[in-house]
């Protein structure tokens, strides 16, 4: 640890690598880096500071994620750690990595579509267009409910293969 602290640039790089191994407990196929919730890693006064941001205000996974980060770093002998929870700038699905989007689709959850344009949210009875069915790839799908098994997901159904599926909704 002390040796590493001496070279904080090296340590920062190592921590980013370790964070790649911490997964989202609710969508375990995604690492917290894929999810875009790690906003910064810095080292100051022999202490590591990691800033994370919640996906949704009430996300019950935040405490678990903080504990997982702590345990992963502890396993490498890094114990002087403060985790900051930052609300602003607010998390957006635009921070989901490309790799994360591909992992989601392979896992059976449709990744967010057109999440640069959030104006549609208030369009009554509107739904995200061209949400592809993760099973048969058809974009002929419909929204069942804007709210699903976790805060970040909506329920869709495929009109072709009839399979219901989760959609990681735009945020």
């Amino acid at each position, binding site marked *: 640890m002390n040796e590493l602290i001496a070279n904080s640039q090296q340590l920062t790089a190592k921590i980013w690598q370790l964070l790649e191994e911490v997964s989202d407990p609710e969508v375990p196929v995604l690492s917290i880096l894929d999810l875009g919730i790690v906003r910064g890693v810095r080292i100051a006064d022999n202490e590591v500071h990691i800033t994370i941001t919640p996906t949704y205000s009430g996300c*019950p996974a935040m*405490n678990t994620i903080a504990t997982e980060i702590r345990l992963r770093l502890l396993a490498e002998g890094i114990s002087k750690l403060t985790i900051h929870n*930052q609300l602003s700038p607010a998390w957006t699905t635009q921070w989901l990595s490309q790799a994360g989007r591909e992992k989601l689709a392979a896992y059976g959850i449709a990744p967010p579509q057109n999440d640069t344009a959030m104006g549609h949210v208030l369009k009554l*009875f509107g739904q995200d267009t061209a949400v592809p069915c993760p099973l048969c790839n058809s974009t002929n799908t419909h929204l069942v*409910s804007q709210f699903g098994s976790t805060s970040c997901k909506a*329920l869709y159904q495929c009109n072709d293969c009839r399979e219901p599926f989760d959609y990681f909704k735009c*945020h």
Partner: protein
Amino acid sequence: MQATLNAAVAPAYSPEVRQLLFDYVLQLADTSLLLGHRLSEWCGHGPILEQDLALANIALDLLGETRSLYQYAAELEGRRRTEDDLAFLRVATDYRNPLLVEQPNGDFAHTVVRQFLFDNFHYHFLQQLQTSPNEHLAAIAEKSVKEAAYHLKWSAEWIIRLGDGTEESRQRIDKAISKLWRYAGELTTPTPTEKALQDLGLIPNYTALQPTLDAYVAQVFAEATLPVPQQIAVQLGGKQGRHSEHLGYILAELQYMQRTYPGMQW
């Protein structure tokens, strides 16, 4: 988890302004706590599975917002009370939520009307609060407004489905509107605390917000084929600690564990 800011520099407010902010942040926290709690009462009882999940999801978002607000209130007070102390160890007359959010769930139509009246205010209010010079409130608003948009979409769509639905749904929503409309006005009637903070430019001005709220109600109600209620007397009180009988029953349940086992943790 405790939320922190980018620049962790708390503005140096005078003790008077700090007190105003503390009272006001508590009011916001109490409001989202009570509504979140009410919605969570639906868990397992929703009319269909998808709507059960929707109600629980909205409750969770509101409780998340609640935690950020109580944490900030605790920091403003600076007397070592924690977010849990503020949520669980105050008496009913100290709660500052408007009367609307403590009203019982009733049938699904009552829950939808209560939610729509709240969401319309909440979403448009948070839009404005994002530009508050108070960084804490602005950050909480920036986070919550995205969630509130999904809530408003949900409740507005249900107003339309029920209003322009069957004879039965229409009858039920008419009843819910006539029962709950009187509580809407409290949301935009400033208390002396809110007035003082508005004068300081720290929170949005409700008079300026009102036309936006009215326009959205008019738009949704037109699509729902519902007449917008006119000239209904406004029932005030909750924001100043004068509550309906319902609050005591909610708190009896909500506070039970902390009152019975002080300091208990999950």
